[in-house]
């Protein structure tokens, strides 16, 4: 039977709070970045991070290994975002994966090796966020957790609760789809036009992942 912390002294409670702050607060910025990419507005992202921190505090006794704090926090944050309906908020329309596969094939069939690297290096954060929003949710999450947030594959498997092989395939497929999305939209971006599927490009529409 768990022993409530409230039955121990104020000093012990203060020590737990200090330990919580030292372990959790350094990750707030990245958690906010992750939440911002999955919510319609910055205030929604802040609400999600706040809720995740409160849930983390309440469940702090479950954290057995301090070195796994960050993955543990992201797992909680994903739960909060899922409860808030992140998929519906951000991914009401997805581009056709078949269409993207075709674009990807064209990309790889070309013999200009350096072109895509140059395109990728030049797109701005807003365009990148748009492109991530156009690929299926699970693939985007795996790619972001690895490439932006710096998690290893085994940590991502733990956060999203899927086998390691699934993480590997989601990252590989996610990057392919992302590359194709960027390649498809770069001319529009160059003209300063948003690539939002609701505004400009109407590929086939899918429901939430």
């Amino acid at each position, binding site marked *: *039977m*768990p*022993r*409530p*912390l*409230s039955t121990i002294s104020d000093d012990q*409670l203060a020590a*737990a*709070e200090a330990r*919580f702050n*030292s372990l959790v*607060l*350094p990750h*707030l*910025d*990245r*958690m*906010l*970045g992750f939440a911002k990419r999955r919510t319609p507005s910055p205030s929604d992202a*802040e609400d999600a*991070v*706040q*809720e995740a*921190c*409160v849930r983390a*505090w*309440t*469940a*702090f*006794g479950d954290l057995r290994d301090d070195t796994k704090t960050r993955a543990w926090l992201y797992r909680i944050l994903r739960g909060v975002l899922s409860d808030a309906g992140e998929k519906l908020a951000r991914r009401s329309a997805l581009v056709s994966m078949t269409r993207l596969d075709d674009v990807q094939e064209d*990309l*790889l069939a*070309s*013999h200009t*090796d*350096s072109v*895509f*690297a140059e395109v*990728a*290096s030049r797109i701005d*954060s807003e365009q*990148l966020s748009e492109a991530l929003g156009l690929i299926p949710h699970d693939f985007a999450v795996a790619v*972001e957790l*690895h*490439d*932006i*947030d*710096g998690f*290893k*594959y*085994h940590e991502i498997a733990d956060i999203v609760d899927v086998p*390691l*092989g699934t993480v*590997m*395939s989601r*990252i*590989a497929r996610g*990057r392919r789809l*992302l*590359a194709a999305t960027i390649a498809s939209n770069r001319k529009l971006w160059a003209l300063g036009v948003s690539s939002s599927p609701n505004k400009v490009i109407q590929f086939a529409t899918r429901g939430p992942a």
Partner: protein
Amino acid sequence: MSDIRLNISDVDFAHDEETREARHELLASFLGAFVDNELPPETRSQIDAHLTGCARCRRELDVHRALRDRLGNEPVPAASTALRSRIAMGIKNAAPPTFAPEPSVDVQVTPRRNATTRIWIGVVTAAVLSLGALFLVAPWRAPRTSVVTAQSAPLFGAILADYRRVMAGNLPGRAGDLEAVRAAVPFTFAPLSSGSLRLLGAWTASIADEPAVVLEYRFNDRIILQYFVSDVLLFQSASVRASLIRSGSVSVTDGAEGMLSWAEPEYGTLLVGNIAPEKFAALRDASRKP
């Protein structure tokens, strides 16, 4: 490294077009993990061999690298003071966490042992207790890990911000500028000289309103930056001083970025990049070897 292994024995001796394509698809599915260094050596070797003869996979590898590098440079938003206050307030108002009780010790009655066994147990117990006491009082016992964060050590926050700003754009310097850069700062410094590092650029910067030098190295397929700052700046933070005294260096990890800092006789220096601090330590140690 992850336990992801490739088994291509079934298709190794493929001759028909369809099976060759299946083999290619199988190998292509590992390219992301290959770029991310998540494969065991034997699988990497198989893919290396395939890449030699497959231009399509080499192009796909470039796509993976380009995206990973671009996403890795995505700026991280800063949580506002207001958000931090809201979180602190939310925690104050939330139910306190619960912790599992310490495991209880079961006392079991065991049969009496003979005299010889009791003596041996006494000797071993005394030795263990003596060793334990030695560890408790010995000055060289393992130090407690000190926590250095971008918040507790502003220098690290400032350098991390500068690193991210620089990496988000075109890199500013050339290695040929090194001598001009040397003349611009009030301390002498020496670049790292490891065989796995290649100096690509040098420039000056302002960190915490003081002149600093930045060297850019290529390390495999990544770029790492080395900052040189005055020792006054390095020793400013209490948490940094504590870590330097305890372990001779300071390691900080923030998401994908790792940092390692240490003090040289005339200056402080800090390596930063999408690399674990332990790898930086290995590069530093390799550079110190004659």
